[in-house]
């Protein structure tokens, strides 16, 4: 399957690449296109196979027109023809067309008859732009840290000042008191001593009833805490292990809005959601070889690019040669959500039948830079949801009859999962 995709894609890419190559060569002078429009057209049509500065499925396209004109003597007309129908150009026996077709492993570029000459001009204008040298990233682009730090300091100063003031006041009071006493003794006034009543703590100890109440309270509360401690054993809420590849759900599901089930496709039909196999990663990462999104001091662009390299190493993808080496090593992910063996859970029941959002159990995954266990995954947690969630019976012929009869029996409009039998032991334990 991998191979098939690979071939098809590269075919398409190649064709496009050639078109561009040719298109740009000839009309060095004719820079009449609009680079801005060209950029959007490029991203929509060409970017799947071509980059400006990097060879991908198809060749790199920076200054393609100039290059073709210089090296091969091909003009813009040739590029128009190539982009609109590369196969035709190849068929016509054009020498360069055939050469590049062979160079990229016989993968033909998709034909783009829908692009007008003007569109192509725009694209070429875009490719002819000079490469922008990225300005060095400022250490704190937003300067947010500074503000935050200064805010923190000012708070601390205020607090410190208040504390000093308080100490000064206390000391002042003590000194006043001491001075007053000294005056009193100097003037021979007897200060009344406090009467020798039994101290409160002693009275407390002597009161057996109070002691009993306290003891009971103490026992109960310690039992409560012991119970609480024991019942969290084996509950790994918040479990956030370090993974062999730093995969950011935030970037994939959040920033790029990739659907969860694009990668975790078996969640629709199987009991397991499935950790995507590396060929699924490579569907996109064959062309996404670098990270271009937002970065932070902790996770720099170099860091993310390094993680993509790890993926390439695992999948056995040679990015320079744009081909698989065949030497792959499976990634040993650390499993985060672990249900005990005696509990049966089926993703498809919840995802496909009930239409539950993944986030209901897995939390705001699209915000998680590092994945962690959001829910406690305890039986009480399961049961609660089954009690509170109505079942989705719309357009499901399986439920029609049973729902009608059961809702009549319970006198409700909508049944919960519990009323459907979702609390029975054997539904999850077998």
């Amino acid at each position, binding site marked *: 399957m991998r191979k098939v995709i690979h071939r098809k894609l590269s075919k398409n890419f190649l064709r496009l690449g050639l078109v561009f190559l040719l298109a740009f060569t000839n009309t060095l002078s004719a820079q009449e296109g609009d680079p801005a429009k060209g950029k959007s057209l490029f991203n929509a049509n060409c970017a799947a196979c071509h980059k400006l500065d990097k060879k991908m499925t198809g060749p790199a396209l920076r200054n393609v027109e100039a290059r073709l004109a210089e090296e091969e003597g091909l003009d813009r007309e040739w590029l128009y023809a190539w982009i609109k129908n590369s196969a035709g150009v190849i068929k016509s026996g054009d020498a360069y067309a055939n050469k590049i077709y062979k160079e990229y492993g016989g993968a033909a570029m998709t034909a783009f008859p829908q692009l007008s000459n003007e569109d192509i001009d725009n694209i070429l204008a875009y490719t002819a732009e000079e490469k922008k040298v990225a300005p060095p990233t400022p250490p704190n682009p937003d300067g947010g840290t500074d503000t935050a730090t200064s805010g923190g300091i000012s708070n601390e100063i205020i607090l410190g000042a208040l504390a000093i003031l308080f100490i000064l006041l206390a000391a002042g009071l003590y000194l006043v008191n001491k001075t007053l006493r000294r005056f009193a003794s100097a003037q021979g006034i007897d200060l009344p001593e406090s009467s020798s009543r039994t101290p409160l703590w002693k009275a407390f100890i002597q009161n057996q009833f109070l002691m009993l109440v306290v003891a009971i309270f103490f026992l109960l509360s310690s039992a409560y805490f012991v119970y609480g401690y024991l019942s969290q054993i084996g509950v790994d809420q918040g479990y956030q292990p370090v993974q062999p590849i730093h995969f950011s759900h935030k970037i994939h599901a959040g920033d790029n809005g990739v659907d969860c089930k694009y990668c975790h496709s078996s969640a629709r039909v199987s009991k397991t959601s499935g950790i995507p196999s590396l060929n699924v990663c490579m569907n996109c990462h064959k062309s996404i070889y670098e990270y271009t999104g937002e970065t932070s001091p902790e996770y720099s662009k170099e860091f993310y690019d390094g993680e993509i390299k790890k993926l390439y190493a695992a999948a056995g993808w040679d990015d320079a040669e744009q081909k698989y080496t065949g030497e792959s090593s*499976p990634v040993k992910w650390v499993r985060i959500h672990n249900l005990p063996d005696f509990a049966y859970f089926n993703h498809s029941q919840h995802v496909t039948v009930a239409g539950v959002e993944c986030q209901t159990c897995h939390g705001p995954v699209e915000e998680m830079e590092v994945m962690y266990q959001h829910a406690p995954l305890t039986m009480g947690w399961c049961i609660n949801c089954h009690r509170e969630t109505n079942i989705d019976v719309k357009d*499901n012929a*399986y439920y029609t009859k049973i729902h009608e009869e059961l809702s009549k029996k319970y006198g409700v409009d909508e049944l919960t999962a519990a009323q459907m039998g979702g609390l029975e032991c054997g539904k999850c334990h077998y």
Partner: protein
Amino acid sequence: MSSNKKYWKSVEELNENSSIVETLKQNEFVAEIPTDEFLGDKETLESSSTTRRDFLKYVGFSTAAASLAACEGPVKKSIPYVVQPVEIIPGVANYYATTIANGFDFASVLVKTREGRPIKIENNTMATTNGSANARVNASVLGLYDSLRVQGPKKGDASISWSDFDSETTKKLTDIAAANKDIVLLTQTFASPSTSKLISEFKEKYGNVRHVVYDAVSESAALDAYQAKYGERGLANYDFAKAMTIVSVGADFLGDWQGGGFDSGYSKNRVPDHGKMSRHVQFESNMSLTGANADKRVPLTPSQQKIALAKLHSQIVGGSVSGDLPTHIEDAVKKAASQLKKAGSNGVVVTGINDVNAQAVAIEINEALGSKAFDPKTPIKTRQGNDKAVAQLVADMKAGKVAAIIMSGVNPIYTLANASDFAEGLKKTELSVAFSMKADETSTQTQYIAAAPHYLESWGDVELKKGHYALMQPTIRPLFDTRQFQEALLKWNGNDVSYHDYIKDAWGTSILGGSSFNKALHDGAYVGTIATEVEDTADVVEEENATPFGNAARSLAASAKSEGLELTLYTKVGMGDGQQANNPWLQEFPDPITRTSWDNYLTVSKADADRIGLTNKHVANGALNGSYANVTVNGVTVTAPVMIQPGQAKGSVGLALGYGRTAGLKEEMQTGVNAYALYQNANNVQSVTIEPATGEHEFASVQLHNTLMGRGDIVRETTLEIFNTKDRDVWNKVPTVSLNHEETPVTSPDVDLWDEFDRSIGHHFNLSIDLNACTGCGACVIACHAENNVPVVGKTEVRRSRDMHWLRIDRYYSSEESFEGDDNKKDNISGLGSSLSEFGELENASENPQVVFQPVMCQHCNHAPCETVCPVAATSHGRQGQNHMAYNRCVGTRYCANNCPYKVRRFNWFLYNGNDEFDYHMNDDLGRMVLNPDVVVRSRGVMEKCSMCIQKTQKTILDAKRDGREIKDGEFQTACSAACSNGAMSFGDINDKDSKVAKLLKDDRMYHLLESVGTKPNVQYHTKVRNTTEA
């Protein structure tokens, strides 16, 4: 007043001078307690540097360390594919149609695979040519994960590579062929058109090649008889669904007779329909599965069988035969004959006597009757062995005439009676190769072991019956460095194509006739429309005597002589010919008749046992012990344990083949005695002398009480006559209790202690078991084992009644001639004296008892006694009628098992999946691959039981929900109901009023087990009806 009474503590005190009495006054014990013995020798103790204090420190430290270490949760890794195969979705099962053809079992099956590993064998409903999967076929998946398989080619004890193997063997073969010496291919029955083609190509290439087909358990006589009559080597096909009167003389056709697979056809006519059912008369010596199912069973010795068959022939076909039979047998033969004549073309006669004349007689009778069930036109091809060719081969080998022998699928040093001759001959060959999955008795004696793959890893094709083809396809990549025989033949023939391509090509040219190969592969079978002639490659030794027909009956009767006891060798439903002896499921599978696992034994009638002095007795824990006997045939003696078998014909004994293997088996599986040593001239009947031997054998029986004691309400029985003429209340009365002095049926809500829970909405599952259709074959038992991860506990644990089968098939014998007699006897008991003596008598099975099988699993009572006594509510009831068992909640009080009237709950005494004492598949990294990932593996200290395959019902429901559709009848299945091809088990939803089980619930024959207890089970039974009408 003081008493002068003196109390004696023991008789010893009467002896005034006893020193013991004196000692006991001072000491607690007479002798010194031998503490030194268990404290070990003093020197080591004293020289040890570890003081008591140190020891305690170590204990304390290690305990603390262990508990600290346990605080850390384990890190679990999850490793996805690098490239996920398109057809695999983790968590979803794939099914592949394939065919088992191991030389003994041939069946089209469906293999369930999970994440690429086969975990269960199921019936292929699209390919039913050779019956369905029996217990052995169901268990065969475990053979794939046998850790004792040969993992690569071997030369002697050393491993070699396949390329070395190829070059060395090819060179030797070429040399031998050049020297014009004999090359022999000794193989199992492949019944494979492609293999036959390959072998003929091999013959062409190497010249002097002889192909000898060898069946460990021979059907040679029947093959010879068929060949003599119809000119083709095969076995007549029988379709018992077309027979209303069946007479069998010594044929265990519900067992392994002529390859088996006849039971589903047989069962079709056993269920009374419009007042009619088939009539089955069985003449036999051993109590077989077939005899147990018969309406009338006549025990007689093998020599009497011959006369009986001859007489049957003379009465139907004509002619006269001599020979004497006891009057009651004579009478039975006459009645059978008249019944057959009356039935005409609806009658059929089969025989299991391994004698050409007998087989010829049976063919003649069926021809004379014009039997519809008898079908000589599409012969069965799954047995092709030739005894004479094998005997000739052994003689030639011994004479040093065979230069090369290549074996596949056979183990002659284990299965031949003259194995030592064969072994001697084997040493004289220049080249010996055995294609084998095991380093077994034979392959360890050959020069090369060519590691063979399991059938689930192989390609292949089979012609089950003439024109009925089946395909074998791999369901997993080979686990080891193995190569199948056919691939090697291709290599030797210098052909570079793969066997898969070879089959595809062969099918395309000669079998399919234009149909799609892929469709045939998908379906697993193809029924040809064009009759194809595949060259018979097995070389046939010329018959010296002419066709047996014409004079067969007279020669048959003349050949019947009896000297002393007659031994009939048979194969067990569980073990078959013994090639799967390392399969713990099959070892623990209780024999349907004796209900004994892990053993074979000499079955002896009570009368003979008493005469010879052989006994069976129950020891203190209830388990069965038996004496040993020396069984001698022509100077060969084996010592076998004795099992007294009701129904065994006087003057006959029986012993099962397939046990007593020692090579290539785990120690636990080396059970029983090798009866092949007595299988002389491949004749299953031998005359023997039997002497008692010393010692006592410990049996592992799962049922220790054999009779029903007249409790007719457990297994309801009636006769066809009563069933047809009388009201339901007469033969299947609902038990009543007295309420306000009125007899009220126990099913009435008025006499119920409990409020009925409303189950009318949603699904309500019922399992229906028809005692008429159930033959007791046990396929369901193994299917349940495989589906539900039921552990194997081993012989000693079975002996302690700790077997774990979730589904058992109870077998009961009648104490009188019939169960009706038992009931009458019990009802007529009056007074204490009579009750003591007659209940005592009822414990003993009759000499020729009626037999009944009753599968029992959890009855899923709506008012379950187990649920009310569980202190932790670990077992509870679901709305869908299933009694749930939450293992993680169970604390192991076993109250539930004690309160269960059906005794279906099983307690996990040990951690069977993590205790080295139990060296079976669950304790073996390879064996664990067979576990079903949808069912939890239970831990120690919990109760387990049949769940009514809730994982399967839930899956069916989920699939329907996902598709958004209603569930059709027949979609719901349990492992047992899916495995039962006899129609004895039906499963479904009774809230679906049109479903089969809903209709069966209203059937007149329906009753519930122990209905009087008021448990309201969700398992229905259907009264057994016997056709006792004599003609």
